[in-house]
C-alpha cells in the first residue's frame, strides 16, 4: 500500500462554544478518490478547511507525506500541494477570469529587481486549461461575474487541477449543477485521479459518490462513523449510515424508495 499523501489524525475543532469536530481521522493516497459524506452540519466543510489551512485545528495532527506539519495559512497548504474548490467557490465576480485563475499564485516576470505580472503567460495558460475542461472562453479578461454558474464552477476546478499537484479537495462541487455539468465534473475527477492525484470528494449524493469513489468516510456530528472501501458497501448501506438509519426507513416506504 502506498504511503498516504495527507493524513489527519484525531482532529478537533471548536468555534467558541460550538464543537464542530470531535476527533476525526482521515487519509488520502495518490490516485485514489476518497469521498467524505455526511449530514448537514456534520462538519465536512470545517474538516476540509482544516486540511486546506483555513482553520487551525484545536487539537490533532496533520501529516503531509509522513511529515508532521502545521499549516499557518491557506498558502502553506497550497505550497504543500493541496488545492481546494470550496463550496462557496472562492471566486471574485468583479475580477477577470485570468486574475481569478491565478489569484494568490500569480506568475511574475523579472525586470532587473522588479517583478511584474506575466500577463501573456497567465492568459495563455488560462485559455488552455479552460479549453481542456471543455470551455472555450471568448476572452480571458472577461469578468467572472459575466459567466454562468456552471462556467464559474469549471474555472474553480480548472484552477485547482492546474495547481493541485498532489491533493485536490472538492467541497460539494455538484450540488448546484445540472445533470450534464455533473457528469463533466465526475469525469474530470476520474481523469485527475488517473494522473496520480489524490482527490477528496464531498457530496450529499450517494450515487455521485459511488460513481467515482474508492473509499468512503462518513461523518456524523463531528465524528467519523467509519471508512469503507469500494465494493464492500452498497448504496443503501451508505445511505443508511449517512442518515442515521431507522427514521429514514418509514419515509422511504411512503415515497417508493426513490430518494
Amino acid at each position, binding site marked *: 500500500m502506498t504511503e498516504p499523501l495527507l493524513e489527519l489524525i484525531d482532529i478537533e475543532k471548536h468555534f467558541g462554544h460550538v464543537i464542530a469536530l470531535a476527533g476525526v481521522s482521515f487519509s488520502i493516497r495518490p490516485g485514489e478518490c476518497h469521498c467524505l459524506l455526511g449530514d448537514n452540519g456534520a462538519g465536512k466543510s470545517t474538516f476540509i478547511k482544516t486540511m486546506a489551512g483555513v482553520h487551525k485545528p484545536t487539537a490533532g495532527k496533520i501529516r503531509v507525506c509522513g511529515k508532521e506539519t502545521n499549516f499557518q495559512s491557506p498558502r502553506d497548504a*497550497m505550497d504543500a500541494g493541496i488545492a481546494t474548490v470550496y463550496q462557496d467557490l472562492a471566486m471574485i*465576480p468583479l*475580477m477577470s477570469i485570468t486574475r481569478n485563475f491565478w489569484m494568490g499564485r500569480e506568475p511574475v516576470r523579472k525586470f532587473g529587481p522588479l517583478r511584474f505580472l506575466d500577463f501573456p503567460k497567465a492568459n495563455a495558460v488560462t485559455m488552455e486549461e479552460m479549453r481542456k475542461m471543455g470551455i472555450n472562453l471568448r476572452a480571458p479578461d472577461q469578468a467572472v461575474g459575466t459567466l454562468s454558474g456552471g462556467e464559474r464552477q469549471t474555472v474553480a476546478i480548472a484552477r485547482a487541477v492546474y495547481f493541485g499537484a498532489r491533493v485536490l479537495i472538492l467541497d460539494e462541487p455538484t450540488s448546484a449543477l445540472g445533470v450534464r455539468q455533473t457528469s463533466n465534473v465526475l469525469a474530470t475527477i476520474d481523469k485527475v485521479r488517473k494522473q496520480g492525484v489524490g482527490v477528496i470528494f464531498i457530496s450529499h449524493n450517494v450515487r455521485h459518490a459511488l460513481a467515482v469513489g474508492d473509499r468512503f468516510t462518513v461523518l456524523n456530528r463531528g465524528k467519523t462513523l467509519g471508512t469503507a472501501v469500494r465494493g464492500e458497501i452498497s448504496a443503501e448501506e451508505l445511505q443508511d449510515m449517512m442518515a442515521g438509519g431507522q427514521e429514514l426507513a418509514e419515509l422511504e416506504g411512503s415515497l417508493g424508495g426513490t430518494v
Partner: protein
Amino acid sequence: MNEAGNQLPQTQKDERLREISPLKKALIRPELGASAGTIVVFLFFLLVAGDSGMFAPEGVLNWGVVSAQFAIIAVGACLLMIAGEFDLSVGSMIGFSGIVIALVSVTWGYPVWFAILVAFVVAIGIGALNGYLVIKTGLPSFIVTLAFLYILRGLTIFVAISTTQQTIIGGVREAAQGDPIAALFGGKIFRGLFSWLADQGLIDKFVAGPKAGQPVIDGIPMIIVWALVLVVLGHILLTRTRFGNWIFAAGGDNVAASNSGVPVKRVKVLMFMLSAFCATVFATCQVIEFGSAAADRGLLKEFEAIISVVIGGALLTGGYGSVIGAALGALIFGVVQQGLFFAGVESSLFRVFLGVILLLAVILNTYIRRMITGER
C-alpha cells in the same frame, strides 16, 4: 481558440444573447466615465472662461497644483478603496503630520529632514494602527477611521496649543533653507527651462516688486511631480503586479481571497499605511511650501479624496476601480473648483456644482461598471 475537445460549444450560447457593438466594447473601461467627464469639463470651461487667464500658463499651473493635491490623496484613497476599505482620517492626518513637522523642526529645533522623517514614521504607524484595528476587530473601517478623525484632530489642536499656545506654527521655511529633503517636497524643477522660456518671451516676467525680472512661472512645483509619480507607480502597482491582483482580490471578497492564499490582512494594513503616507506627502508639501503648519489643515479632505476616487469610477464597496480614473477624478475636481473662480461664479454655488457632478459621475460610472462586470 482551437476547435478540439469542445464539449460545451460556446457558439450555441449566442442564440440567447443580443449583440453588443464592438465600439461600445472597446470603450468600456473603468476610466471611461472619468475620461468623458474630463473632456466635458474642459470644453465647458474653454467656453465660459476661455479668456479669463484660466488657460494661460499661470492659470494652468494654478489648477494643476490644486488637482495635484487632490490626486496625491486620491491615490492612497483609491488603492485603499479597491482593497475594500475607507479612510475618513485622511484630513485629520494631514493636519497632524503638518503640526508634527513644524513642532519637531521649529519648536524643538531638530533639522527639517529629521522632522519630515518623524512625521512619516508616526503617520504610517497610525495608518498601520488603523488597519490593525480594522482587521483585528472586524469593524467597518468607516467607524474605526471616524474615531481617528476625531482623535487625531483633537490631538493636533491639543499638542499645538499646549506646546506653543497657538494653533499655527510658522517658521518652517526658514528652518528648511538648504535642507535637501525639504527641497524634495517644496522645491521646483525645470527652473532653467522656464527662465529660458521667459527670456524667449514665451512666458511673462514679473514687472515689479522684489521678484522683478524673474519669470512668472519659475518651475514645476514638486507637488505636481509627486502627484505624477504616485499616480504612475500606483497604476503600475495595481495593474501590473502580483500585489495589485491581491488588492483587487482583498476588496472583491476577502474570504474568497484569503482562502485562495492571498494575504488579505497584510494587503489591507499596507493600504492603510499607504493612505497615511499619501496624506503625509500632502502635508509635507504644504508645510514646506507655505512655511507653516496649522491645526485646521486638511479639514474635510477625506471626503474630497473619496469624491475624486468615486468620480474616477471606483466602487465604494471595493474590488473595482483604477488609479488613472482617480487621477482624472482629481483633475475634474481641481479644474471645476478653480474654474468656477475663473468664471466668476458665486463661490457658494461651488458646492452645489460639486454635488451635482458627483451624482452624475457616479450614475454614469455605475452603468459602465455593470456592462463590464456583469453585475446585477
